[in-house]
């Protein structure tokens, strides 16, 4: 076991953690965080592969490293757009939910189905 392999396995676990959070956490902001953890796992996997490509005195393959910088900036932009959408949803109704029906409130006491 060497460093790149270890961090590659760590990246695989992070993608799994992020995916679980994305599915299970009901709040949209938590889903955005989960999505970002998946993204960082993918980046880390790519970074481990870049490290394996070390040659001619370079610590890693510079091509994937440059693409990683591009990827991190794009991920930030997408996160900012997602957060702006979420805050606009909150401004509209004061509620932030992805549930198909509105969550039960105290005032609406529907009679139970027979």
């Amino acid at each position, binding site marked *: 076991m060497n460093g790149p392999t270890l961090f590659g396995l760590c990246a695989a676990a992070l993608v799994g*953690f992020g995916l679980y959070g994305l599915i299970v956490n009901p709040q949209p902001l938590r889903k955005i965080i*989960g999505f970002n953890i998946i993204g*960082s796992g993918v980046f880390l996997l790519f970074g481990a592969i870049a490290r394996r490509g070390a040659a001619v005195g370079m610590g890693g393959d510079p091509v994937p490293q440059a693409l990683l910088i591009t990827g991190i900036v794009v991920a930030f932009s997408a*996160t*900012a757009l997602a957060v702006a959408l979420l805050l606009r949803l909150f401004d509209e109704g004061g509620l932030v939910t992805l549930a198909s029906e509105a969550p039960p409130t105290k005032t609406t006491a529907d009679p139970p189905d027979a």
Partner: protein
Amino acid sequence: MTLALAVDIGLTLLILAMAAWTIAVRDTFASVIGFVTYGLLLTLVWVRLAAPDVALTEAAMGGGLTGALLIGAAARLRSTESASRTERPSVLTRTLAAVLSAAVTAALAICVLNLPDPAPTLAPAAAAQLGSTGVGNPVTAVLLAYRAMDTLLEAIVVLLALVGVWSLAHDRAWGGYPQLRSHADPDGILAYFARVMAPVGIIVGIYIFWIGADFPGGKFQGATILAAMWLLVIGAGLAHLPPVSQTWLRVLLVAGPLVFIVIGFAGLVTAEAVFAYPNGYAKPLILAIEIALMPTLVLALALLVAGAPQRMPPQ
């Protein structure tokens, strides 16, 4: 087991624990703080993977700006916290999600363990042409010479995201001021900190930008630091964000990609290919693109954190 491997294993365990906590903790604000910590730990991994350019980007962007963005959002959404707790998915959903996630992780782990050996690499190809680009940092050479098209598209993606964010403004705030809450006392500790920190941060940001030609650093990292300093000064109540309808703002935002496109297509005439630089002029042209992109990136990144316009434009 070597000492380096022990450090790597410790770092991996810390990161996995932090990620698990960020996903599992009940309070969203705590989760955001967990995510920022996680981003800073990842920075150390990038250093261990011999990718200092990526480490700087991750620290500035993954931990810094994303953290500021998420903290702001979590604070505004606090009142929705208790309502959404009732939406917890069923045991069946959670079990299926766990099985699916474990399967994805296992598949990726099998891929990691079966990567080809020796690893394919473009490092010799990047090193062979480094002299003709005039820059010493191979990552910068990839970003602005070998794969300049990617970098152009990335700058445009940042701008498109900003257009998307601005489009979410209410009709009444169209073209107005992005709200960035500042409850800071103008004589308080935050204002003092911003006065002391901002000049230092601006020097560091410009240094990181300038040094990027030959050493780890570059325009994205430098621009992120400058954007953070601007937000710090605004958050401390020492300055205000401009309304997004300002002409100078829009000109600066478009100038960077425009200069990039013009220089890129000029290569068709001067060097027989789009995004090719004529012999001997690579370094000055790369510098011109970077200097034009800097204001675009600083403004776009800071305004992405500031969000959609919330208040009336000036009449």
